[in-house]
């Protein structure tokens, strides 16, 4: 009986000193990046090495699991950046390809603000073609660039189905905005509006089809008039 009590005491003393000591070795392991890991260093380092008498130490060393506290760092993907390519019909000046870039910020699931920057080139008027001479604009003046700051509204969010097993998120949206058009070497205040359709093949990629009307005043052909320049484009954008 005497022997076994001593043995118990010895075992307890051994456990009290050796277990925290063991924890020291866990220090060597690379610390996992998971939020709920045990910082073993603290419990191990505060323990005195195992050569003291059993009386000077508590019998049981509480080994509290400490979790490294990590605040929510959630990846917010409210911005969308992309490029587009399409056709722009410039009133009196034929239709030409247009390409541009687009940056959008999604305010809510319903609304977004959008900035677009596009570039195209004007062709020749019917008058220029028919008369065979007298170019109205120089080559540089035929460059057509615009920007627009718009507010968009996802009117009909939904899903599109391709076959039986695939569904992609989509939205039909309306946009309206203001901006400026540089054409014939002058900037003009431009109001634009239109609609678009967006399909998301993955959560971060969107394919757009957009139709826009750019409206501004111009007095290039003598008298001042309102022109409507219609644009249709296909675009690709990424959420980030």
């Amino acid at each position: 009986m005497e022997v076994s009590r001593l043995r118990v005491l010895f075992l307890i003393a051994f456990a009290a000193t050796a277990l925290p000591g063991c924890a020291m070795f866990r220090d060597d392991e690379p610390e996992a990046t998971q939020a709920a890991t045990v910082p073993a260093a603290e419990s191990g380092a505060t323990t005195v090495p195992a050569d003291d008498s059993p009386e000077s130490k508590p019998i049981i060393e509480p080994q509290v699991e400490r979790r490294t506290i990590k605040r929510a760092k959630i990846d917010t993907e409210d911005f969308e950046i992309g490029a587009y390519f399409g056709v722009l019909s410039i009133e009196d000046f034929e239709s030409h390809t247009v390409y541009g870039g687009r940056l959008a910020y999604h305010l809510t699931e319903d609304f977004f603000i959008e900035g677009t920057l596009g570039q195209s080139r004007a062709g020749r008027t019917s008058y220029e073609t028919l008369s065979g001479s007298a170019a109205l604009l120089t080559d540089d003046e035929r460059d057509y660039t615009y920007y627009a700051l718009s507010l968009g509204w996802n009117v009909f969010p939904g899903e599109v189905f391709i076959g039986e097993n695939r569904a992609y998120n989509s939205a039909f949206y309306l946009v309206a905005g203001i901006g400026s058009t540089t054409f014939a070497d002058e900037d003009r205040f431009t109001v634009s509006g239109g609609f678009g359709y967006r399909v998301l093949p993955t959560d971060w990629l969107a394919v757009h089809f957009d139709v826009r009307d750019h409206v501004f005043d111009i007095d290039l052909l003598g008298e001042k008039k309102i022109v409507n320049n219609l644009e249709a484009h296909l675009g690709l954008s990424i959420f980030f």
Partner: protein
Amino acid sequence: MPRWLRALTLLVAFFAAGAWADDDELQKILIADPFIELHTGPGRGYPVFHVIERGREVLIVKRRTDWFQVRTDKDIEGWVPRDQMVATLLPTGEPLDLQEPSRENYMSRRWQGGIMAGDFAGASLISVFGGYAFSDNLSIELTLNHILGEFSNSASATLGLMHVFVPEWRVSPYFTLGTGIIYTDPKSTLVRAEDRTDQIGYVGGGLQFYLTRRFMLRSEYRNNVIFTSRDDNEEVDEWKYLGFAFFF
């Protein structure tokens, strides 16, 4: 392909590469509601296809507006609205702090940006602004204006201070004062037309109307003085009829 488009393509590729997040860095949360519903998309109308009951842990993959994409331990991914996420817990047992801007704490939001439209001495005005608030009342604001008129086009950049008198009011007036530069480019049809850059100073006031969550409407008047190189300075009234601002 012009250079800027090429740069844009590169930028897109860069963000595409960043779109793949590492699993280890995702926030783990504990469901505290009886259950949360997973929608197929980030919108109220998307169907619910899965539920996760209380006590289960999920990873937050990303957030889009008020929706959170979560991933279960069985690799099922779906979208959860913010209302349901509010009741979830961190692994430490604390509630998940989404730091949501609302009427009560929108003042503590430091950054603000927005767009305004109006009239600058008869010309159309497009204005983009961004501000940083030092305190609840006082902020510094950078404004970029594009002024499109019949006889001339201008662009201006101004930096000023803005003082909101009672920020906790839903409709609250403010005072603004600042300076900047204005570049004027008269239209080619004009005689004696020359480009010029002048300094500009302004004093003004406005109203901000708190809409909801992080959004505000703004309306502003500025009295500008353009310090021209001629004998007289020019005084210009600037009305920004309506603007839209948001906090972030």
